[in-house]
């Protein structure tokens, strides 16, 4: 009966069960599976590649601590990204308090992770616009168009209403259009 129940479980339920049991093999697989996506998300959020790599590891350690909170009733990605987001925002607030954020912003212009990651002419054109966007707009764009999360899932990750998420996406798109047009003014 238990075997039948396990065979019928969804992928999120399987992940939830493995996290609660602290199954090292499954967790290894999750780390590997989500590494690039987490790194990309955290880079979009922080616009600092080095910080993003540190935060990826912290995210998984936090996942271990909070494993009991995930019950598999919804997709794993929103829960994972919400944990990563909280860590990134805590890190951002800490840097703002210590004044190191100003240094980071100056470094961004010459060391933009978006410029380094651009692989097409259009990507190069919008890289500056991406860097100029506030993190919450970059986040909304990434989660919607790269991670293919629904607006409700993005709202869950960002802790914001769906209408706010929709507004952020539209604002972000406006900035990107401006980048393609060759100016920084939103269309």
């Amino acid at each position: 009966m238990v075997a039948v129940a396990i065979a019928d479980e969804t992928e999120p339920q399987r992940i939830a069960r493995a996290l609660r049991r602290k199954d090292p093999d499954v967790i290894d697989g999750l780390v590997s599976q989500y590494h690039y996506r987490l790194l990309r998300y955290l880079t979009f959020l922080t616009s600092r590649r080095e910080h993003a790599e540190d935060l990826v590891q912290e995210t998984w350690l936090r996942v271990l601590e909070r494993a009991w909170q995930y019950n598999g009733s919804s997709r794993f990605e929103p829960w994972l990204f919400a944990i990563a987001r909280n860590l990134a925002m805590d890190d951002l607030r800490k840097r703002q308090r210590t004044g190191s954020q100003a240094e980071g912003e100056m470094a961004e212009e010459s060391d933009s992770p978006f410029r380094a990651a651009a692989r097409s002419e259009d990507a190069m054109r919008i890289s500056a616009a991406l860097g100029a966007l506030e993190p919450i707009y970059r986040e909304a764009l990434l989660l919607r168009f790269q991670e293919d999360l629904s607006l409700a899932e993005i709202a869950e990750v960002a802790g914001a209403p769906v209408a706010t998420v929709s507004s952020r996406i539209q604002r972000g798109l406006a900035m990107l259009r401006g980048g393609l047009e060759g100016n920084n003014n939103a269309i």
Partner: protein
Amino acid sequence: MQSDTHQRARVLVDRALAEGISPEDQRWLTRHTDECVECARYTEMSQRAIRALDSFAFEIDPEASRRVQDAVRERLIATRPERRSLFAGVVAAMVLTIGGSLVMWALAGWMAQRWGIPARAWQAGFALFWVLPSILLDVLLVFGQRFIGEHVAVEEGEKL
């Protein structure tokens, strides 16, 4: 009116990309962009912007994922003895509780006999003042931990 039409088209373009629109709105939008060069261009630029997002590729250190896996395994190993201690503690608590209850039951019965208290009376009193508080405490401990965890999760969400 014209500007309202264009504004409506742009709103629909953005909404279609972000969350989808109704078939009726899609048909209206398609008819409009077939006729309006400016709005057609707006649509094209929006779609190009989204395609451009697909063109970002971050280089990954091949060992980075392995380092994270190692860190996670170290944490799993470090916390595992705590789980064994916790399990042992729970078992010990249960043994002491059951054993202690049996001892108290026998003691209460002996004292009731000495003082001439009817069996039903002392047994009801034992259930009320010994067993029920223990059960209530167990329930509070179990659900209290879960409530604290949820409260922390809500606080984390509210920070943003």
